[in-house]
């Protein structure tokens, strides 16, 4: 029995198989519509997360399965003080697979150690969010046709953004990826990541202004720069516009550069960009459902 705790739990070859399966699901949804008949997915969400939970639920319904679960800790036995280990032992008797989101880091790992059913980490604090990374990779692979040989710009909050860190770790396994980190000094990518890139001899550059580099990028991964991350209001006001993507900045970009975003978007991508063919962040949401369908089938060994 396998679990998914980190995007690195799967080898590059296993990911290829998973993405091939997701591609087949996209092309032939009918073929998979009854694959999970009689199976139940438990969504154990100890903190609210509408998009991830709905994506898992849609994935299971698309496969003909059922969903049980809770959507915040106050409506679960955790409110009475039950441990994660006890909860998963109980859930193991009710469901065939579990997707768990928890505000504390490592909670899904604890669950996987006691579980009799596959556990998927659906986000644990600032630690991991592997199905978002799988979604990002599938989106790039489906729309670019490859996961190697490109320059990717990561823009915004690169210090605290777990989706950014996971994506970097996942992409370094592919050939000839160049990273361009675009952020204010306060929100630079952590040292342990740049040290890892140096050790592996992977090319990267760090810049402050998006305009300066947008023309070199094949992919642009946007994240939100949050006001509360800055020490003072003055710095926030001075820097925030550097990280807002608008039509003017898009004119400097390559004609086939793709824009990704883990969502929710607030104001870092101007709505005027939404109609640009290069804006694929809403398609990304659809790929999130396909990759979760492929993941459920793979972990339940139904393929």
């Amino acid at each position: 029995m396998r679990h998914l705790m980190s995007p690195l739990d799967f080898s590059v070859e296993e990911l290829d198989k998973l993405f091939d399966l997701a591609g087949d699901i996209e092309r032939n949804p009918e073929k998979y519509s009854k694959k999970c008949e009689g199976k139940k997915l438990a969504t154990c969400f100890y903190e609210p997360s509408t998009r991830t939970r709905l994506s898992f639920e849609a994935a299971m319904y698309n496969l003909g399965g059922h969903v049980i679960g809770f959507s915040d800790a106050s409506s679960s036995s955790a409110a009475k003080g039950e441990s994660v280990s006890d909860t998963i032992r109980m859930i193991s008797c009710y469901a065939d697979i579990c997707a768990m989101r928890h505000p504390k880091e490592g909670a899904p790992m604890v669950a996987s150690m006691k579980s009799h059913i596959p556990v998927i980490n659906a986000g644990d604090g600032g630690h991991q969010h592997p199905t978002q990374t799988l979604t990002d990779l599938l989106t790039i692979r489906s729309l670019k046709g490859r996961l190697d040989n490109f320059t990717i710009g990561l823009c915004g909050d690169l210090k605290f953004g777990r989706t950014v860190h996971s994506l970097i770790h996942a992409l370094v396994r592919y050939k000839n990826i160049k990273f361009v980190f675009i952020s204010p000094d306060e929100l630079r990518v952590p040292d342990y990541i740049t040290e890892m890139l140096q050790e592996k001899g992977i090319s990267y550059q760090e810049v402050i202004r998006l305009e300066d580099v947008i023309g070199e990028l094949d992919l642009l991964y946007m994240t939100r720069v949050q006001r509360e991350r800055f020490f003072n209001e003055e710095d926030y006001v001075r820097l925030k516009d550097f990280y807002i993507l608008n039509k003017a900045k898009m004119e400097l970009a390559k004609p086939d550069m793709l824009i990704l975003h883990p969502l929710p978007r607030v104001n870092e991508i101007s709505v005027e960009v939404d109609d640009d063919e290069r804006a694929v962040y809403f398609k990304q949401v659809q790929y999130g459902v396909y990759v979760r369908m492929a993941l459920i089938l793979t972990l339940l060994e139904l393929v």
Partner: protein
Amino acid sequence: MLNVGKIEEGFVLDHIKAGKSLSIYHHLKLDKLDCPVAIIKNAKSEKMGAKDILKVECDINKLNLDILGFIDHNITVNVIKDGNIVAKKDLVLPKEVHNVIKCKNPRCITSIEQELPHIFVLTDEKKEIYRCKYCEEKYGEWE
């Protein structure tokens, strides 16, 4: 000069950093054994200036010495039989350390579920980096 006699069978931990012997005594759970133990603090050492020594008279197999590798792999472990040193054990960094150090990351699941074992995994042998099995926080990050 303080003199502590030879032991017949057991082991001597030498070259312990001065002042660290008591913590090793507890980590090895020597307080749970009923064998004779000598703790020598601040003994003179040419190499270290001052050092601690632990002499324990018991079967060496009764103890889990892995933890010594984690605490300080420069400690010398001399195995004694019939009053003589018969072997020296090399200490290596253990792959996992259970319930010796605690994860101090306030966001870690161990911060709210106290009954969980604290497990650290060796993730970089060269740099001697241990990370919490659950949250992957580096040991020492919150010191």
